[in-house]
């Protein structure tokens, strides 16, 4: 086993201060921990911050960001956005896509020729190149430069993009994959016959914290029990479904249960739910943890997850999860941790939530089991060991 001492990480975006996107946060944290362990780490990224416009808002060049040597490259500005959107709409519809159209889509996605040129010139300086997530042109094209030393951090979902022929090519050519959870590895096995010998399940570590469960309700004047969701609010994340379910729950059971949301994005809630919905938007990490700690349950209605970071945070706050059974990853995490329940449809949701509401001892037991799980499987020393084993052996 040879030690991979010189590493390059590639992600479409990099935030010097806050967090942007789950996959980018994951790659940044892995890079920082690899650097802290004494490995030489270079981070290659683009000058974009906004994931809608992909405008080059940051100055290009090389800067020191904490322990990382970060190189910012401009996003290609000559991409044909209309061609990209045309094919993307076909993919979303599940229409058959020809190989040339797949190529059109990925080459007009977010790309950086400057980043690839740097890799071509300096790729020999790195023992391993870690790139992700899988569906960006930056990742796809960077993996072509030094495939034999590229490890993909795909953050793979069961979504139409994963079924494209070019994605099979991407997974075929890289030296290995670092997955976030076992179901993600199973998905890659099913879609691309990806061999276990070329992959490892690593995930991301979380620092333990203590949060007072009474603080959030006291500060916000909440006297009724509440459930919470944290993260982006959008149809793909299931937040409109959660709003519909909670309204039906309130109307059918007569329980005065509130919904607390933290995070970004517009809330699509039925008007009748609005008086019972508390949208606190972006809050500090401490504020989010306190809000989680006081909740009856952390509800995760998304079915498109490769790793439920917020679910792990809720467990660290001692709060049980209630997740959509359609997400293999969230279900797997709940099973492994014994930290939450999962629902297929509204009746499951109602029955599960009633149990959690009526049985504080069950809530505490599930929350405590979840916390033990995170502290064991997702403590940084455990994650670092999995990461370094993978870097040195794949």
């Amino acid at each position, binding site marked *: 086993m040879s030690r991979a001492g010189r590493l390059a990480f590639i992600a479409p975006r990099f935030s010097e201060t806050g967090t942007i996107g789950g996959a980018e946060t994951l790659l940044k944290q892995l890079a920082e921990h690899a650097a802290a362990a004494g490995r030489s780490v270079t981070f290659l990224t683009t000058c974009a911050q906004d994931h809608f416009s992909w405008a080059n808002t940051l100055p290009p060049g090389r800067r020191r960001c904490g322990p990382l040597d970060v190189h910012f490259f401009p996003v290609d500005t000559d991409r044909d956005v209309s061609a990209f959107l045309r094919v993307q709409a076909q993919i979303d519809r599940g229409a058959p896509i020809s190989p040339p159209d797949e190529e059109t889509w990925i080459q007009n996605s977010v790309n950086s020729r400057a980043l690839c040129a740097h890799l071509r010139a300096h790729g020999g300086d790195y023992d391993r190149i870690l790139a992700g997530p899988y569906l960006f042109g930056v990742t796809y094209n960077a993996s072509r430069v030094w495939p034999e030393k590229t490890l993909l951090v795909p953050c793979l979902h069961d979504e139409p993009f994963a079924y494209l022929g070019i994605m099979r090519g991407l997974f075929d050519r890289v030296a290995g994959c670092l997955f976030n959870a076992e179901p993600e590895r199973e998905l890659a096995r099913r879609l691309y016959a990806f061999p276990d010998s070329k992959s490892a399940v690593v995930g991301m570590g979380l620092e333990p914290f203590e949060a007072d469960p009474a603080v959030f309700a006291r500060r916000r004047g909440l006297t009724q029990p509440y459930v919470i969701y944290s993260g982006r609010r959008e149809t793909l994340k299931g937040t409109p479904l959660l709003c*519909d379910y909670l309204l039906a729950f309130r109307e*059918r059971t007569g329980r005065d249960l509130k919904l607390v949301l933290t995070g970004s994005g517009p809330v699509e809630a039925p008007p009748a739910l609005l008086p019972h919905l508390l949208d606190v938007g972006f809050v500090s990490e401490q504020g989010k943890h306190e809000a989680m700690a006081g909740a009856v349950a952390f509800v995760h209605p998304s079915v498109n997850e490769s790793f439920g970071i917020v679910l792990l945070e809720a467990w660290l706050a001692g709060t049980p999860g209630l997740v959509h059974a359609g997400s293999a990853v969230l279900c797997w995490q709940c099973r492994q941790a014994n930290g939450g329940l999962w629902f297929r449809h509204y009746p499951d949701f109602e029955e599960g939530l009633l149990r959690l509401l009526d049985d504080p001892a069950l809530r505490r037991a599930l929350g405590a089991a979840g916390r033990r799980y995170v502290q064991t499987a997702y403590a940084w020393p455990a994650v670092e060991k999995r990461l370094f084993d993978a870097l040195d052996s794949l």
Partner: protein
Amino acid sequence: MSQNVFEINAPGVDAERLVAEIRAAVERKTAEGVYADARIARAERLNLARLRDTDEFLNFYLQCLRDATCVDISDFSIRERRRFFGPALVALKKVIWSLLKFYTFRLWSQQNQVNGLLVTAVEGLDQKYAAKLRELERRVQAMEAAAGVPAPAAQQPAADGQAGEGA
């Protein structure tokens, strides 16, 4: 890497057993008609794509739709909560209702017809494709038997997220 790394086996609580209990309770309550409620049909509108693998629930959802298809257009008792001018307000409302009734009755009875036709069409399509699938499965089995292909193991329920979306 072994999956064992992620198995903690926390004592005192078994999420798998809890979910099995919840599902058993849901099954019992469904048979008792506890969930025959138009509000559930409305709440499930965004979850339908995920329910396509759960035949049993799809049947239940169609039952919810049948229950929700008819808008209630019959007469109702008109009341007034305000204490002052209560009887006068009730009389006024009764006059307004009698003036509007012929119009709303016509409108909503047509809407009920449309709703009923749509539910019937959905049920018809469901039955048609279910029959088609059964026939195809029968033919595949017959061809596999003729070719000597061993029968597949029983499939795990796909509702826990293993079902592919396809593209």
